[in-house]
């Protein structure tokens, strides 16, 4: 029998205050296989790890069980430590007596009893663990970035500049995302287009970046280092290889429809680029509104196109890409104001959302940067900005704070005042959140210099009357009921994960939270990784954030990708399921359950063969194998049964 050492951690008092360490030691002292038992205040500390290493050498241990916190925290720490003294890392197991014991039970007796059972069962597992070596898997050193807003652009540029190829996919005709729609950006008020466009151009010129706009990922298979991604290139009806971007088609197309890029306030043609600085600067044709597709007549664009690039017969195209890592940067949408019944549910034309206001402020927007209200084009003289619209309202909408709206509302009020010096901006707010470098100063400037009036309270309703919008609320600071006759109202609507991203997350097998934002591997320590190896997160897809935070996270994600690509192979966990050729009857049950096609029936021999690289170690085959031939390494039937017995014995 193996010689197992058990090390019980106090975790300061996190464990020892509810688990009686001495009693645990006493109970395990004579447990079969346990030849040494010891406790220490902080096992993960340097002295703690040294102690572990010393004892392995000193006592000639063949295996150790560290009874401490969750293995997600320090399994790596301890396994690295034992390896330094020559022990195979699979001989080190963790018994979780903190998260799953000392922290969830108050009664010391009960927690102590449970801790003993947990440790005993893990000792049973350790006794039969095999020494395993990681399986080497080749890495495709090529990345995919999905979503080409500022997050995707930054990540793609960083990865490309580290020397790796990047496939950059966006569902829209142009890259740039929401940032392209913004006017000027807080806290410095530099023009959004001016700082974004150079980056967009850099993307288009970077040889390592393969750009696929107007495209969507439809299928993902494989695993870290070796993903296969199927991409749908949506039909554009323009052959981009031929198109030279002259724009004649756009100019001459006789049909205009409302422009998504301008949030419905401005117009675009049916054959169009979303905005003049679009990258790639080549048009797509929107067949739904095209006269030729509806009535069979027109073809003006085709007739006038110099290189004859317009092609009405084009269809969707599907391509496959192999990549080793994926960065998800699918960004955000804003909560639709039709959900806000008390604010007119989108039926009052002069009640608009923040992105629409950005378009009104933008010098390249539908009003050339003049603030004119949508209903009649008049310049509004009193404008009310309402914050937390849909945010911080767990009863009716979403519980979270959207993080950027306090700042952009201050910015909106300020920019409005700059455009309309005799106008008056008001902001209804509940709290003003300005945690960021220079942000509080920006807020102060809005109040001091631009005389933005802040009213503290939630607006209860608004309605139209005599060409005005009456905004009703309370100012909790003065305790007075407020009625404000505004010319225009701007709602700072909640930031939402972009449409369809949850389906996409399911394709990728990454998680999202109850609000639909993608879940990071650890809320503090691993904020740019998803829980699935090789898939990283950047930007508002993970949580609402402003541009500086977006860029920081995107660079972080790129660094993780570069980190992964630093070697040409990956070490794959060897907890795979083999086959015992003597026992295997060739029934093939395991073949049908394996999700990765790792098992193949060798018809001639009548047994199954396993591809170690493909096996991810789910263990499903082991559970289905009638003869016990398919055993998952270190999770064998005997081990599991012994663990169960150890728990049930007393």
């Amino acid at each position: 029998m193996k010689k197992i050492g058990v090390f019980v951690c106090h975790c300061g008092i996190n464990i020892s205050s509810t688990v009686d360490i001495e009693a645990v030691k006493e109970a395990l002292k004579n447990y079969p296989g346990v030849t040494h038992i010891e406790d220490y205040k902080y096992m993960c500390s340097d002295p703690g790890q040294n102690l572990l290493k010393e004892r392995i050498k000193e006592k000639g241990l063949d295996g150790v069980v560290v009874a401490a916190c969750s293995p997600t925290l320090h399994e790596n720490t301890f396994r690295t430590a034992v390896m330094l003294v020559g022990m195979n890392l699979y001989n080190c197991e963790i018994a979780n007596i903190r998260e799953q014991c000392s922290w969830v039970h108050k009664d010391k007796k009960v927690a102590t009893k449970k801790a003993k059972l947990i440790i005993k069962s893990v000792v049973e597992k350790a006794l039969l663990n095999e020494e395993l070596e990681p399986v080497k898997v080749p890495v495709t050193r090529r990345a995919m970035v999905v979503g080409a807003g500022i997050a995707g652009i930054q990540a793609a540029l960083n990865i490309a500049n580290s020397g790796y190829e990047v496939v950059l996919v966006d569902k829209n005709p142009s890259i740039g995302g929401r940032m392209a729609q913004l006017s000027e950006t807080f806290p410095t008020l530099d023009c959004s287009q001016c700082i974004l466009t150079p980056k967009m151009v850099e993307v288009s010129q970077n040889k390592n970046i393969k750009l696929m706009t107007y495209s969507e990922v439809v299928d993902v298979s494989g695993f870290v280092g070796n993903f296969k991604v199927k991409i749908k290139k949506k039909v554009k009806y323009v052959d981009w290889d031929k198109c030279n971007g002259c724009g004649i088609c756009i100019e001459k197309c006789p049909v205009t429809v409302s422009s998504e890029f301008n949030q419905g306030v401005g117009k675009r043609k049916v054959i169009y680029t979303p905005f003049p600085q679009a990258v790639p600067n080549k048009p797509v044709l929107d067949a739904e509104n095209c006269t030729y597709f509806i009535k069979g007549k027109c073809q003006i664009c085709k007739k006038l196109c110099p290189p004859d690039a317009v092609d009405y017969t084009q269809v969707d195209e599907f391509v496959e890409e192999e990549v080793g890592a994926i960065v998800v940067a699918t960004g955000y949408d804003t909560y639709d104001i039709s959900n806000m019944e008390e604010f007119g549910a989108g039926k009052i034309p002069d009640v608009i959302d923040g992105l629409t206001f950005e378009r009104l402020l933008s010098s390249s927007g539908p009003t050339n940067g003049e603030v004119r209200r949508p209903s009649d084009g008049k310049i509004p003289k009193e404008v009310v900005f309402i914050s937390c619209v849909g945010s911080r309202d767990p009863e009716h909408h979403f519980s979270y704070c959207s993080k950027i709206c306090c700042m952009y509302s201050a910015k909106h009020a300020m920019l409005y005042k700059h455009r309309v010096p005799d106008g008056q901006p008001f902001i209804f707010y509940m709290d003003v959140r300005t945690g960021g470098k220079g942000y509080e100063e920006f807020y102060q400037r809005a109040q001091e210099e631009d005389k933005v009036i802040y009213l503290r309270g939630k607006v209860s309703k608004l309605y139209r009357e005599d060409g005005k919008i009456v905004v009703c609320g309370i100012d909790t600071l003065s305790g007075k009921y407020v009625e404000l006759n505004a010319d225009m109202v701007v709602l700072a609507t909640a930031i939402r994960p972009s449409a369809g991203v949850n389906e996409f997350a399911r394709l990728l097998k990454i998680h999202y939270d109850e609000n639909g934002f993608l879940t990071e591997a650890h809320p503090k320590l691993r904020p740019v990784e998803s829980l699935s190896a090789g898939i990283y997160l950047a930007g508002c897809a993970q949580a609402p954030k402003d541009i500086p935070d977006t860029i920081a996270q995107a660079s972080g994600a790129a660094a993780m990708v570069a980190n992964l690509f630093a070697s040409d192979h990956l070490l794959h966990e060897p907890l795979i399921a083999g086959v015992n050729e003597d026992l295997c009857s060739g029934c093939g049950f395991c073949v049908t359950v394996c999700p990765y096609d790792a098992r193949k029936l060798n018809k001639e021999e009548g047994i199954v063969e396993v591809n170690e690289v493909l096996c991810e170690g789910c263990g499903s085959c082991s559970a289905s194998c009638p003869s016990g031939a398919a055993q998952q390494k270190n999770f064998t039937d005997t081990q599991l049964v012994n663990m169960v017995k150890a728990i049930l014995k007393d």
Partner: protein
Amino acid sequence: MEKRMTVSSQNFKNEDIQKLEEISEVNVYSCYQCGNCSASCPAFEFMDMPPHQVIRAVQLGFIDEILEANTPWICAACISCTVKCPRGVDIAKLMEGVRQVILRKGIDHLNINEIDKKLREQLPQIALIANFRKTIL
């Protein structure tokens, strides 16, 4: 209203506060003072203390102010406040609680004989019954 108040944990131990929380089953600590309840209240202008301030007073344990205010008697139990509250505070229920705390001290709020006779005959029954149920025990 007092301009100075001593805030102390002793305030919450007040018997009436505890009774109020018991009768109403409302967790006043959910309130983040957005004022939406007050902004939706039809009787706001007539109240000594608007609903959000009543909540605030309960949070801080200033029970006397609440018991003295006309607010609970002006409240029409219209539930506008409750449906608007983003944090799910049932203010209408709290108002009922305040009324009950007072009524159960044996202090009725309404003397039926004081109601104008003509009005009494002319009013729909539901007005009278609803009023009695809120103002006398």
